[in-house]
């Protein structure tokens, strides 16, 4: 495994590049100066000093506020939230200040910050260290939401997020950090454009983050059955690149959305609602959604395995969608 192609390597390159490129960039979070539990920020403090790489106490609500206050005064802070589950502690500052200050000030304030959030289910870490809550943030005007499924996107999108003048949530799936890219991918300049990771004409599969990989696994099996799936990796969830999805549907007439988050109220709901509106006459079958069951993430490895959508589940849904 070439180290440089791991998801985490892409993130690290992006952070280093932006730290070098713009002295206003800084990062803060619990244990970031020692690299954090996954080592994403390893070495940054040695290179850029404690003034720009700040360890914080366990005070999620207030460190979010600190980042906002720094951004309001012209810095470009990155805040690391160790687990998305703890972001629940910082929702007030995120939703009531970061997302709204530009608006409430009539455009006087900009909050150029990145909220790096590790998330996802992997390894039996249980209900409070495994959630996928991204759909909440789609519903909050003023925020952007980026995801990545590979090191190329992790790098280019993180750089774009740091350069953005608005608050961007950057979701990092723990199950991806140390995984190698299994595809050679080109770089897409616009972080808010979706990526077609596989061409196909029989159905469109829309996904993001780690589930993109499960979809690719399922597609390989489907191809053996003579079904060619077109797979779209959304990358940005807010804004959503509906154009790419609709264009694909006009070729396949069938679409499913796959995410790890609980299906009900997930990102797939918004996408399905938009698709059925924009492509009503193009659909040969209802938009299918695949997501986690309506339950917290269990700790038991056996239950967790049953919980996380996998390629078998995707396969089954795809077969039934194409058969419809």
């Amino acid at each position, binding site marked *: 495994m070439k180290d440089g192609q791991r998801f985490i390597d892409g993130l690290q390159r992006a952070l280093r590049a932006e730290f070098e490129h713009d002295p206003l960039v800084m990062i803060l979070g619990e244990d970031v100066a020692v690299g954090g539990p996954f080592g994403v920020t390893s070495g940054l403090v040695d290179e850029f000093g404690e003034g720009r790489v*700040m360890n*914080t*106490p366990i*005070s999620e*609500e*207030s*460190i*979010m*506020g*600190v*980042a*906002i*206050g*720094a*951004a*309001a*005064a*012209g*810095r470009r*802070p990155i805040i690391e939230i160790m687990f998305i589950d703890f972001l629940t502690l910082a929702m*007030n*500052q995120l939703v*009531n*200040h970061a997302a*709204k*200050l*530009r*608006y*409430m*000030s*009539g*455009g*006087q*304030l*900009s909050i150029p910050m990145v909220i790096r959030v590790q998330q996802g289910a992997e390894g039996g870490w249980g209900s409070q260290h495994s959630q996928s809550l991204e759909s909440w943030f789609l519903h909050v*005007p*003023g925020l*952007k939401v980026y995801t990545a499924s590979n090191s190329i996107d992790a790098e280019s999108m993180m750089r774009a997020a740091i350069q*953005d*003048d*608005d608050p961007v949530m950057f979701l990092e799936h723990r199950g991806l950090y140390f995984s190698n890219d299994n595809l050679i991918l080109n770089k897409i300049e616009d972080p808010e454009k979706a990526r077609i990771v596989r061409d196909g004409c029989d159905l469109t599969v829309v996904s993001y983050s780690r589930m993109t990989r499960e979809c690719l696994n399922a597609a390989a099996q489907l191809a053996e059955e003579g079904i060619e799936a077109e797979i779209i990796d959304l990358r940005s969830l807010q804004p959503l690149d509906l154009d790419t999805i609709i264009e694909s549907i006009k070729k396949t007439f069938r679409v499913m959305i796959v995410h790890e988050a609980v299906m009900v109220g997930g990102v797939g709901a918004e996408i399905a609602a938009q698709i059925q509106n924009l492509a009503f006459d193009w659909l040969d079958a209802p938009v299918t959604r695949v997501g986690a069951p309506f339950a917290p993430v269990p700790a038991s490895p056996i239950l967790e395995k049953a919980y996380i959508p996998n390629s078998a589940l995707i396969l089954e849904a795809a077969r039934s969608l194409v058969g419809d």
Partner: protein
Amino acid sequence: MYLIRYFEERVIELCHTKELEGLVHVGIGQEGVATGIALSLKDCDYLYGTHRSHGHFLAGGTDPKLLMAELAGKDTGLCRGRGGSMHIVDIPNRLMTATGIVGGTISLALGTAIAKRDEGAVVAVYFGDGASNTGSFHECLNMASLWKLPVIMVCENNGYAEFTPMSAHTVVENISDHGKPYGIPATIINGNDVLAVLNAANDAVKRAREGDGPTLIECLTYRLRGHYVGDPEGYRGAQEVSEWREKDPIRVFSKFATSKKFIREEVMLEIRSSAQRAVDEATEFMRASPWPDGTRVADFVYGPSS
């Protein structure tokens, strides 16, 4: 102080005539704090407010016209009508933001202090006695002391959180006691004595500017009006209010200044009438201003590059 007082008295009138809508909190009786703190700050400094910040902003240099227009939701307002009373922002005067979230700006002030400490700036932030109940206040005491930030934490202790007296929301005797575990210098002063506020603030600003970290200033004061405009005030007696009326910071200072001949009677009268004029002008400006365009309601959500 007169400007703030007259401005807010006008605000109350305009609320009653429905020219102003919204949830409006006035700080009548607390002008001594706003004024003393503002006088201690320099142009390079920053300030964060609360839900009760008209006075903080006017003392900090906000144009009463733009403020009044904002309160009315006019397009000429500070925030183009999007903010309203609790969410005013005046960046040219480095008045970073008020907030509808109790205790919500303390952490923002810390962040601004981190961003601007190298430029020698000091950041002041207001919060109430009720806000001392919020976890974030304590998280911020910890971080401000840990990082020795140039922050002045100004508690406007008016004895009430909404309808609840301080004795019912905490057993803590003085809000300033919270500084102790963190080694944060803390003082309690008469917030209705503008000079006492100024003195304490000057000390704190000096300390902050010299790199010696945060200071907590507890200003004992009182709001002479309801918690919000329209509050029936069933939770306190007329006796208590009238006692505090005697300690009205404006009355106290005027008496002091004129009796000690710091300010001549005529000058004081001129100050008062010019304040009154400014409020009249602000009202006129507000009335003459256009409404925002309803079709632009989703402007300013993202920056121009998005």
